């Protein structure tokens, strides 16, 4: 499935890296990123398209919400999407 997430981010050094790192580390592929300043209130609006064949988008959203730089996370839409992802398995 491909999911489109909309994030409101408190602009802080490393915030974007933290978000992108978390998404990929938690087993999702990023296929689109848009980010722009939301104005002069120190907020950044981000949209991410993320893909995973089996991982739960609800869990990813809760993991993103835990980041201190992330103010809100919304799921805009989910579509079927074909992407080969090699997942590592614990030994």
């Amino acid at each position, binding site marked *: 499935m491909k999911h489109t997430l909309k994030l409101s981010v408190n602009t802080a050094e*490393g915030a974007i890296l933290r978000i992108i790192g*978390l998404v990929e580390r938690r087993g999702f592929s990023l296929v689109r990123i848009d980010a722009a300043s939301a104005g002069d209130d120190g907020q950044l609006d981000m949209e991410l398209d993320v893909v995973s064949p089996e991982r739960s988008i609800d869990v990813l959203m809760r993991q993103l919400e835990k*980041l201190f730089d992330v103010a809100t996370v919304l799921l805009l839409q989910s579509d079927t999407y074909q992407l080969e992802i090699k997942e590592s398995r614990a030994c």
Partner: protein
Amino acid sequence: MRPELRTSMNGAHLVIAALEAEGVDTVFGYPGGAIMPVYDALYHSSLEHILVRHEQGAALAADGYARATGKVGVCISTSGPGGTNLVTGIANAFADSVPMVAITGQVATPLMGTDAFQEVDIYGITMPVVKHSFLLRDVADIPRVMREAFRIAAEGRPGPVLIDLPKDVATAQTDLHPLLAGPQQASRAPEPAAASRAAEMIRLAEKPVLYAGGGIVIAKAVDTFRRYAEMSGIPVVTTLKGLGAVPTQHGQCLGMLGMHGTRAANEAVQNCDLLICVGARFDDRATGNLDGFAPHAKVIHMDADPSEIGKLRTADVALLGDLNKSLATLPAAAGIEAWQAQCERDKVKGAWRYDAPGDGVYAPAMLRQLSEEADDNLLLTCDVGQHQMWVAQHCQISSPERHLTSGGLGTMGFGLPAAIGAQLGNPDACVVCITGDGSIMMNVQELATINRYRLPVKIVLLDNSCLGMVRQWQDLFFDGRQSEVDLSDNPDFVQVAESFGVPAFRVERRDEVGDAIKTLLNSDGPVLAHVRIDPAANVWPLVPPGKSNSTMMEEA
């Protein structure tokens, strides 16, 4: 006027004053170039600084201190290699949800990004293994960042917070004061509708099991959990970090579940119709093959961290929030006498045997005897490997904060520094570090720290002259190809300990074990027992990797 508020105060003084304002009394660290202003500020502070011999020792000692006391552990290093040496300890705290604040020196801001001497992007390197982190570019941010760091490290599901402090920020003049610690965030209670559904499931269950994890001690909910377990009569299995949630010798305790769990615990979970997960996270070492885990069970998942719900196993009901509040909503089970009797029969049937043949030291029996002869003041720390599993299986553990083990990350080298931190945080405890010949060499330099501070840590070094757990897996799953596991050229550990100023003695035969335990428990200062054990000994039972917990291998 308080001396720390003098007009010549700089950023480093403010950092130290903030640590004092947070109630910190002990910090672990190692000085170096970029952190020198902080060490200068430390010189006249009220903090006790414990000088370790490697920064990894500082982070792991801070971790052990935090686990033993429930307070935030603090470690300090310089930039570059000082910071990278902390990383394993920070990751260890992250994996086991331990509250920690790590302060790293950084090169001055104009030099950052120029590949300066001892410059490394520790803020970037640690990002995946911190709960949060700060790069302090402005001295004016110090009061807010220090307060935030301690709040974040301790609240909800705890974890490590890194503060990277450039040298010019540390030396910048300031007249600011530390912020005072604010009120703690009110803990969250579970939704009433979810609590009602959970209560109904418990009343209807015929074969319920309590699956107790490390979250119980983190939530300071050990007493509440014990009251509920006893009131409900529901059999208890624990994770590695949940050991002691009820004392391991308690009648309802079936032992640890999972890869090296007891047969009784694994069978109870595999046969139960309701699994009540209390502060645990369905880790692969606990569940085995997830598809085959508790296949007949509905799941009630209780946790403080919303992102754990549904991560690995779908919960039929989630009780989010403070475990004390969630546990208080649960009713007694009804009509489970037959199930209790079945669990009890399995427990008796699978009881450990200690009648191993031969004259050599049988490690499980020695560990059992040690924990029986010590009183409830015993505080065990473990390294990682076979001995870690033997401790989990065979030692009597009275409460989880008295069994410090690297559960999530599995850090060889944890045991010795963790014992240092635990002893400093709990000076009256009888701290015993159980280690192996592989693990102790990972942080053997911390024997010097034990000697320097004359910490009465007892060390039991179980020496099988190999990396036993890896050797066991190579024998079982790699057709016996023993690749790079031989440690038969180990140093003489008695001489090593003595050269560090730690008295040591050898235990080579079973008939020496009784006296050895007495010597360990009755010594006033530090002491190391070098115990030779069978290099071929394995940890049983064992669920092979990728198999369900129904598939338990026993000794042939």
